[in-house]
């Protein structure tokens, strides 16, 4: 190819084009100006102007989660870059493929405490898979290629490319975008000698098996493979919040979420199992409860792409390292052989116990006779009125757990939430990204009043883009989850958790130029859901007033054994 002289900024644009990037979520500023100039009026990728870089990061995450493609966000030097930090940390915890591109001050100014200078590669080192400070303009194509490659391969995650302003304006010889990478220290997926036979034998000899699905299923798009495996093994299935949708929750084989706010029957099933088959999961403290008492009789088959997750918290009896999509069908085949040879294990007695728990300890709420709307009812109503056919994004708090408990996810990439970092303010931004990624599909945000207020300025973005997202704010005028802990563990001392009834969300929606609605009763709720679903012109914000003291149950107190759950008492 004939060499061509282009600017560093143009090289970044060409890298985006070569990677098929559709949207760039960001905001311009002093040092990133050359890049925005190179992207002026560009249709693909299209720049999306957000009002705060954190939102750009979360929107890119929402896009990535909803589509399975890499999300891209941008920020200028200094505060633009540091505003991205929360979103990058969020993507790191939840293994979301994210490329963040930041500009920095010119090379001669680096290290001089220049205006809007921040050592963003230093700052984001612990929360990225890798990051780069590009000091040689000629390195841009290679670094961009590596960045996208590392973000999406292996265990996906965020990367950051920091480019000084004068590198963006320098001329480089454009030789075309590299076709491959050569990174001596990065070779995913790592493969150890797969002990498929050992795993199959354990599965064959288990009498109380449980399948535990995590976010890894989504990362490797292994839903079909999981379904085939689960169908063969026939064991009860539990999921993490990121495992929602890995297997249809409407299928009775699935017991839904377990852990701190999982159902009693899901937690009892895990605690009493003699084999845990963990697929793409990492035994987070929010699902295991007290580690020392976690599933005391269970052996563990742990299949994950990240070898560092194996035996990090719970020792794997048989570790299987590799990409679920490739490795799980091999395991399924091996298990099938074992079943054919030795007969399929009879787990009917185990299922009977599970069903007993499910009948005796269902998730429950009772709206009837209540003066106020219950948040569980709101989620349940939404689910029924949409037939569950929507992409749900949430903020973080009680509403998130109500959504996780009551929104039965039947398809992959349908439940988008901040699980690992627990970032309030995630709902609206991720809804923006999800709606852009999947236009024409219904995107519903289930948010809380505290969470919503952390990023609400970007309603402007959603209105500008005419995105028909519907945000239901379960409004209890509290930082509800913290309030719940205060009520249960801090003797009702509600330090700084009551929120004032501000802003008026209906007026706020009006101020931003979108539809604002409010519901206080079940009748009003049905009406506003219909109105929201009918509004295709832009966002809808619904202020749903819910019972203020309602708590998320059951609950495993932090640090308690998984089967040591508390339930609603008089409150």
């Amino acid at each position: 190819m004939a060499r061509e002289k282009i600017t560093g900024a143009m090289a970044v644009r060409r890298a985006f084009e070569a990677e098929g990037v559709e949207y760039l979520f960001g905001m311009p500023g002093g040092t990133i100006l050359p890049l925005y100039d190179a992207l002026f009026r560009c249709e693909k990728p299209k720049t999306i102007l957000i009002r705060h870089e954190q939102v750009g990061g979360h929107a890119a995450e929402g896009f990535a989660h909803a589509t399975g493609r890499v999300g891209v966000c941008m920020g200028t030097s200094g505060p633009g870059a540091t505003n991205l930090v929360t979103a990058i940390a969020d993507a790191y915890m939840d293994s979301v493929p994210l490329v963040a591109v930041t500009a920095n001050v010119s090379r001669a100014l680096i290290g001089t405490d220049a205006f809007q200078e921040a050592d963003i590669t230093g700052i984001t080192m612990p929360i990225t898979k890798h990051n780069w400070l590009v000091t040689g303009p000629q390195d841009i194509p290679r670094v961009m290629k590596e960045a996208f490659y590392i973000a999406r391969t292996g265990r996906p995650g965020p990367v950051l490319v920091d480019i000084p302003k004068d590198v963006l304006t320098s001329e480089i010889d454009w030789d075309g975008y590299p076709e491959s990478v050569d990174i001596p220290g990065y070779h995913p997926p790592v493969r150890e000698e797969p002990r498929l036979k050992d795993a199959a034998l354990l599965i064959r000899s288990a009498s109380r098996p449980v399948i535990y699905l995590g976010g890894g299923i989504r990362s490797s798009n292994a839903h079909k493979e999981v379904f085939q495996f689960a169908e063969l093994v026939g064991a009860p299935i539990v999921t993490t919040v990121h495992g929602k949708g890995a297997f249809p929750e409407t299928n009775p084989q699935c017991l839904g979420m377990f852990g701190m706010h999982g159902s009693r029957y899901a937690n009892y099933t895990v605690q009493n199992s003699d084999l845990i088959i963990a697929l793409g999961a990492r035994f987070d403290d929010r699902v295991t409860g007290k580690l020392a008492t976690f599933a005391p009789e269970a052996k563990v088959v742990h299949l994950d792409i990240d070898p560092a997750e194996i035996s990090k918290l719970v020792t794997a009896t048989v570790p299987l390292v590799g990409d679920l999509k490739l490795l799980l069908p091999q395991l399924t085949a091996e298990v099938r052989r074992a079943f054919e040879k030795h007969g399929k294990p009879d787990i009917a007695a185990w299922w009977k116990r599970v069903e007993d728990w499910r009948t005796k300890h269902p998730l429950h709420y009772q709206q009837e006779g209540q003066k106020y709307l219950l948040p569980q009812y709101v989620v349940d109503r939404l689910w029924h009125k949409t037939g569950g056919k929507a992409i749900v994004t949430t903020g973080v708090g009680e509403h998130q757990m109500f959504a996780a408990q009551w929104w039965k996810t039947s398809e992959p990439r349908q439940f988008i939430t901040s699980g690992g970092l627990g970032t309030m303010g995630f709902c609206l931004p991720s809804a923006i990204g999800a709606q852009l990624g999947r236009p024409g599909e219904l995107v519903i945000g289930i948010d809380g009043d505290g969470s919503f207020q952390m990023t609400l300025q970007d309603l402007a973005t959603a209105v500008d883009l005419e995105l028909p997202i519907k945000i239901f704010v379960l409004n209890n005028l509290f930082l509800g989850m913290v309030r719940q802990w205060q009520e249960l563990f801090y003797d009702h001392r509600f330090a700084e958790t009551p929120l004032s009834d501000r802003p008026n969300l209906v007026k706020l929606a009006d101020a931003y130029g979108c539809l604002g609605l409010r519901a206080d009763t079940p009748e009003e709720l049905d009406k506003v859901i219909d109105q929201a679903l009918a509004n295709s012109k832009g966002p809808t914000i619904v202020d749903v007033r819910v019972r203020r003291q309602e708590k998320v149950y059951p609950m495993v107190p932090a640090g308690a054994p998984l089967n040591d759950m508390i339930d609603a008492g008089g409150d």
Partner: protein
Amino acid sequence: MERTEERPNGATHTISLLVENKPGVLHRIAGLFSRRGYNIASLTVGPTEHEEYSRMTIVVRLSSKPVEQVVRQVQKLVPVVEVRELVAADLIERELLLVKIRTPERNHAELRALAETYEATIVDVSPDALVVEASGTAGKLDALEERLRAFGIQELCRSGRIALERGFKTLAPPNLK
């Protein structure tokens, strides 16, 4: 003269890393150790036979976590090309010791004899001070240090450990083996 190491706060392990010779790599590795709570007893870094790679030898003290966990976490860092725990029996390990001793000239002969026993050398002599240089295993240097204490240690400096495996085994990226 080898001596078993004392392990008051958990076992120590020697981890050898081959890393890309690029800015910020030390920061990435040290940061990983600190945020995951792995206790670095010593760390050395220096050039290797290939200029694009550096070798790090990290002695880590672990009380509860298995060393495999550390190795796997370190392996995830992109600039880390190879990483392995070097097992004691298979290991040539060295540290360097420099000690300044302030002692009257009449003691010098005794010091020289002691140095000889430990294959140490006296590299600087002034009327009332001398500098001893020694290299060897941590155990040997501990012993020498203990003996020198009686003469009055003025200043002491010890390097971290460097180590190689015995035999033909190497810690090199496949394309360079």
